[in-house]
């Protein structure tokens, strides 16, 4: 059995897990390339109305190894999307350091060290499916012949080869999201950042997309940071689930899942005892140990 349910994560489980957690022992500023993401003492405070401050994140310590699939889970307002945006350098921390493959987040963004997918597919409606997938290649000056080959590969990968000439408004939500994932993979990133990419999809499409994501991830070997509020989704996909809590947004627990190699995970895993054990472990970590599993979801966490 590869799960370790209810095992406390090595990192601090106390409410305001600040400075001295074991993970700080690893070299941070000089992190080598085996670590995809390293966050040390990261804090993000938003200036609210009339001088009020909102602490979206505090004392974040996170390490994502190369090739590792890590989910960030927690109720609305726990700062999981904010943390992803900080890693992507779409926003900047008010304190702390973020390193992506040993570089600053800003340098990593400029060097295109990651691919990103959002909850909204965010396709450009005036461009065809093929033109949307090739957008990052075009922006970075790749020649058109090379672009065409790569786009064909990517559309093959997400099973949309027949739709290259279609426009986004002619596709279903699931297909649009697959185009967005193909686009995020265009430059073969070693890190994928995904912010609830399946959040707007129906349950059936969602499960199919999850299986597809595992397959793609096994083929590319990329590290993934995956934001979700669905416990089964996090358990099914991840090597490790990072549990977050709101007001102020912080990491409260980590659960090692490791249900096996991404390539070996099939649909039958969803009915496996190890899967349910993982779900229970994450749920208990989310709700605190006093919460009975039978009560189901609470605090805005989705038990789908």
């Amino acid at each position, binding site marked *: 059995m590869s799960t370790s349910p209810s095992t406390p994560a090595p990192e601090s489980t106390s409410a305001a897990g600040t400075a001295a957690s074991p993970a700080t022992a690893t070299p941070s500023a000089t992190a080598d390339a085996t670590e995809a993401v390293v966050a040390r003492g990261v804090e993000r405070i938003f200036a609210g109305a009339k001088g009020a401050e909102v602490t979206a994140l505090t004392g974040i310590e996170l390490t994502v190894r190369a090739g590792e699939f890590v989910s960030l889970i927690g109720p609305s307002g726990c700062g999981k999307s904010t943390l992803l*945006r900080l890693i*992507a*350098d*779409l926003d900047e921390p008010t304190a702390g350091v973020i390193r992506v493959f040993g570089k600053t987040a800003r340098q990593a*963004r*400029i060097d*295109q060290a*990651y691919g*990103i997918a*959002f909850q*909204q597919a*965010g396709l*450009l*409606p*005036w461009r065809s499916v093929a033109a949307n997938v090739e*957008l*990052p290649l075009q*922006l*970075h000056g790749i020649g058109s012949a090379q672009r065409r080959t790569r786009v064909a590969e990517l559309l093959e990968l997400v099973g949309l080869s027949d739709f290259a000439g279609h*426009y*986004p*408004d002619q596709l279903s939500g699931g297909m649009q999201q697959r185009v967005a994932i193909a686009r995020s993979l265009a430059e073969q990133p070693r890190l994928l950042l995904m912010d609830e990419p399946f959040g707007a999809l129906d349950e059936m499409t969602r499960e199919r997309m999850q299986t597809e994501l595992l397959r793609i991830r096994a083929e590319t070997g990329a590290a993934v940071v995956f934001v979700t509020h669905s416990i089964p989704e996090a358990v099914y996909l991840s090597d490790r689930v990072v549990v977050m809590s709101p007001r102020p947004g912080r990491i409260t627990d980590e659960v090692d899942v490791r249900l096996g190699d991404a390539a070996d995970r099939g649909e039958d895993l969803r009915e496996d005892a190890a899967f349910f054990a993982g779900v229970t472990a994450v749920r208990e970590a989310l709700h605190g140990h006093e919460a009975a599993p039978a009560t189901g979801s609470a605090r805005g966490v989705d038990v789908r």
Partner: protein
Amino acid sequence: MSGLPDSAVATQPTPPRADGAAAVSGGTGTPAPDDRGGTAARRRRRTGGGPLARFAALVLPPIALFVVLVLLVELIVVSAGIPPFVLASPSAILDQLVQYAPQVLAATLATGLNALIGLVIGAVIGVLLAIAASSLRSVDGMLAPIVAAVAVVPIVALAPVLYTMFGSTSEVARIIIASIAAFVPIFLNTLRGLRQVRPVHRDLMRAYAASSGQQTRFVTIPSALPHFFTGLRIASSLAVISALVAEYFGGPRAGLGSAITTAAASSAYARAWAFVIGAIVLGLVFFALTTLIERIASRHR
């Protein structure tokens, strides 16, 4: 006539059936009875069939209605002996239209040219100022009250002043009036379009480390284009109306407005109506062309 663009805006998202009926009935100046659309829809459903059958089902009913109405007016005018200065008979108008065809065409082209030049100038200035206002907050603050003031300037108030400024033989005054009328909707719509970039697209371009030039070319301009074309469509009708109405207040004798006043003043009522038909056709051409461009530009949205 100024009701036309508004009603067309309102019917734009509905199926072309309603659009066509509204445009034709609006253009011919007849009221659009509400049962019209319903009849057309029923007929279309019954025919189903190929694109040709659907086109016929779309176009034939309004034409049939138009013909019936014209014949009815003809019958009333002739049988009741209505004098031409009250209502000219359709046959007399047609007769004048054929007889004065070259003059009607020349007048339509003269007014149309003024409207077109005015539309182009208004569009260029509108787009340039919208770009300035969207990129610099201070420019936006300065422009907003001025645009609001320009938007409410009545052509009636401006025309005589401009004729005095540029002389009564010059078309410049009319072009300026048409540009002012066209400028306002183009500026407002383009500005709104430039501010319409979706946050997810902005994040995406930042994640791809796109330069500001690339951001403009790949996202900002394509996002704003449909809004610009909506502004252009509204402006096209306003430019025609303004160029024509400006002619009522003086200036050179060329143009539809001048021809209508001249014909009416010399008691040639049927001929005045013939020029009015020229004006209707001109307005429809501008409106149809800009609507077509807008449809193409906002195909995939």
